[in-house]
């Protein structure tokens, strides 16, 4: 091997300046000829330098997306996937909204081109998404005080905001709920924004630790970013009441913090777009400056198309213009400009009164199915469990997820014994539960709760 490589030098392909010394074996550093490899069936010469990536170990499976992968591999016929939060019909099939199919057909007929969107995304989408969130005609929109950029669904929108925080608020911390969606921490870590937690979930009540939450928000250094779930908290399903939201807004203002909303379920939680935006609108009424990340993965079923937005509410139109320009500067070296397909679907659906009405109906239907299945699960638990344990938290929680209160060992039991796939924090996705499976699930939960510690 080595000799055949050295012979290349004689064909004068190497510049004359390279001395023969460089080709000697045994020199220190990365000598490319040091380690000869031979592959009998391959005639080409092989690189002999050790790989730069030698020390790279396997990354751990993603705690959420890894669940679906494990579920797929399970052959048991009773298996139930309550892992990732993707809506399923009663037949446990994925659901593409009719209004989405309509919009896609319209787009197909129109023969839209596939040109680059501007860095900030599709203008019609940005307009629609801000109006959905704040209400068309809201002062923040009329006064052009919202910087809106189309983002790669919720994740991408959060990441843009995190990068902006890192750049313009060096040292500022984001305070996130304990627990929160698993990817929040990854996002702030990779964006190099320090974070800490505020108490949120109370395992004793399987409800909100409101005192702890307020206290921790008060404790945070002035000017911290407070990450709030606009509705349908992920993973717990536990939302503050309207009165509690008022107090949260009070303490945030008192401490001069910046609210940062993650709104992944607008319309999907209660079935009503306006109702689910109430917390965000409360803060807007207060005249505060804040961030809101949005996603259309669940409420329009556009999971795969990665459509969302980051909105920054500013105190002036000038500030909004500047902020928008800097968000673009962050997006450009990340992906240049966002994908068009999902944006067009949203713009078409929201822009047409009929389709918008149809969307609202389908959203009510999806939210309704989840409410119904919650009730069915609760009824099954109450009728089967004779211990007197209070299962009403199932009904109090809202949105796609329910925090069952099961610990890791109990969650493992759910999977290992009952083939029920969920995340290890005790979160189940009700969107993956059918009426038909409620009794089976109730059995599994009761068994895990009482017989495993």
């Amino acid at each position, binding site marked *: 091997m080595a000799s055949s490589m050295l012979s290349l030098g004689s064909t004068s392909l190497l510049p004359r300046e390279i001395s023969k010394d460089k080709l000697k074996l045994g020199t220190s550093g990365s000598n490319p000829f040091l380690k000869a490899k031979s592959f009998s069936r391959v005639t080409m010469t092989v690189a002999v330098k050790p790989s730069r*990536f030698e020390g790279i170990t396997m*990354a751990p499976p993603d705690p959420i997306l890894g669940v679906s992968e494990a579920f797929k591999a399970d052959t048991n016929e009773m298996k139930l996937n309550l892992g990732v939060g993707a809506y399923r019909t009663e037949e446990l099939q*994925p659901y593409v909204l009719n209004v989405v199919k309509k919009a896609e057909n319209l787009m197909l007929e129109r023969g839209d081109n596939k040109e*680059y969107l501007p860095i900030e995304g599709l203008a019609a989408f940005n307009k629609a998404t801000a109006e959905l969130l704040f209400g068309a005609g809201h002062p923040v929109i009329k006064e052009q005080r919202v910087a809106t950029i189309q983002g790669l669904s919720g994740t991408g929108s959060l990441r843009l905001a995190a990068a902006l925080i890192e750049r313009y608020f060096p040292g500022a911390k984001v305070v996130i709920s304990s627990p929160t969606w698993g990817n929040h921490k990854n996002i702030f870590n990779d964006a190099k924004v320090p974070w800490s937690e505020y108490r949120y979930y109370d395992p004793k009540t399987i409800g909100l630790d409101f005192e702890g939450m307020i206290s921790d928000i008060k404790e945070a250094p002035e000017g911290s970013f407070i990450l709030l779930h606009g509705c349908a908290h992920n993973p717990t399903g536990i939302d503050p009441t309207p009165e509690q939201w008022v107090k949260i807004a009070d303490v945030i203002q008192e401490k001069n913090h910046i609210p940062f909303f993650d709104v992944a379920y607008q319309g999907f939680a209660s079935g009503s777009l306006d109702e689910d935006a109430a917390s965000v609108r409360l803060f807007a009424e207060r005249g505060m400056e804040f961030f809101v990340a949005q996603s259309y993965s669940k409420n329009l079923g556009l999971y795969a198309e990665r459509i969302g937005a980051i909105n920054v509410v500013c105190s002036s139109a000038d500030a909004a213009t500047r902020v928008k320009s800097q968000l673009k500067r962050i997006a450009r070296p*990340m992906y240049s*400009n966002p994908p068009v397909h999902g944006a067009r679907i949203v713009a078409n659906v929201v822009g047409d009164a009929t389709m918008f009405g149809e969307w609202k109906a389908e959203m009510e239907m999806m939210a309704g199915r989840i409410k119904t299945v919650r009730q069915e699960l609760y009824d099954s638990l109450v009728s089967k469990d004779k211990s007197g344990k209070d299962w009403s938290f199932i009904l109090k929680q809202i949105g796609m997820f329910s925090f069952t209160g099961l610990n890791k060992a109990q969650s493992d039991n759910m999977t290992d014994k009952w083939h029920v796939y969920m995340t290890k924090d005790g979160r189940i996705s009700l969107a993956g539960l059918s009426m038909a499976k409620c009794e089976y699930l109730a059995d599994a939960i009761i068994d895990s709760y009482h017989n495993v510690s």
Partner: protein
Amino acid sequence: MAMAMMIRNAAASRRAMTPISGDFGGGLRSMSSWWKSVEPAPKDPILGVTEAFLADPSPDKVNVGVGAYRDDNGKPVVLDCVREAERRLAGSTFMEYLPMGGSAKMVDLTLKLAYGDDSEFIKDKRIAAIQTLSGTGACRLFADFQKRFCPGSQIYIPVPTWSNHHNIWRDAEVPQKTYHYYHPETKGLDFSALMDDVKNAPDGSFFLLHACAHNPTGVDPTEEQWREISQLFKAKGHFAFFDMAYQGFASGDPARDAKSIRIFLEDGHHIGISQSYAKNMGLYGQRVGCLSVLCEDAKQAVSVKSQLQQLARPMYSNPPLHGAQLVSTILEDPELKSLWLKEVKVMADRIIGMRTTLRESLEKLGSPLSWEHVTKQIGMFCYSGLTPEQVDRLTSEYHIYMTRNGRISMAGVTTGNVGYLANAIHEVTKSS
């Protein structure tokens, strides 16, 4: 300077911030904004050109700025193979999240384009590859990966290069160095200076190479030169990262356009590649691309892929589906693939034709300068040699829009505007 100021200002203004006070019965009280220190960002040099073009009311305006293909009527093109793929996909009921690594099918088909249909590396599963947000996303993930796993490393970037390359490695916090590439005197490749820089770089450096149709110059090494570069890279143990955004689009022949990569593979390099379907399949806005890293063995490829996914997850979780489906539909159907290859050749040929016409027009006008480079360069762009001042004149006097480095997007040149363009260029250069 500006950034440091902004940071100091941000810290100062935060300390000085008074809490928002008073009741909120209605309307906004005057308040200090969190965003005082946020300066307006400079316009992106490339995408800003199109914005300015769109705002220009002149009927004569010509956009030879951004690199998006236009037909001879100056209209954006959706390839027939793409339209057909759209029709086939219509009514699809699959909208679920792709895995973090994207569509496995699309990735596999894409690797075949770059590495060859019968590539041993694909068979041996030695390539860590994921679907990315077009070429930008692929470069960015590689830059982040490089930062995380080779933290002391730098990236050598050619001069000039696509301006976003600098942004990408900067935001990934990988220090940048440059290497000679373009020779202004010849408007060709400064090969000896390039080789000097490759030789003088510390052993085991990371180099960014444009596989074909260099952006913005259109100047590519010859096959012979690529072989020399590869040999020198081997002697130095350098890592080659190829940005291939124009496969098929440069010469009209995808295999030929991948030649540089094939040479490096034959010579045994373990390379990285960014691939994009923005231009060659006209899927610009769909953001479809692929990042691949050739590893020592299948086991390492699995590890590397898992780490690439780890970088993607907190950036966008998983990539968009639609464009990937279009690519798969086209490439896995022999008829559609064959149609695609024909259409790519049509695009490449039209551009080559426009290069010839532009050069001939300038020569006919009696230009004192040589315009040989217009036909020697390849791909979407022509590095005209125009100075920023000349470009400014083209814009202000003739409403011709291009980036200030004198880069002309040949895709924006048509039989309808080539005469006007030639005349304008002649006017601003005839006294130089």
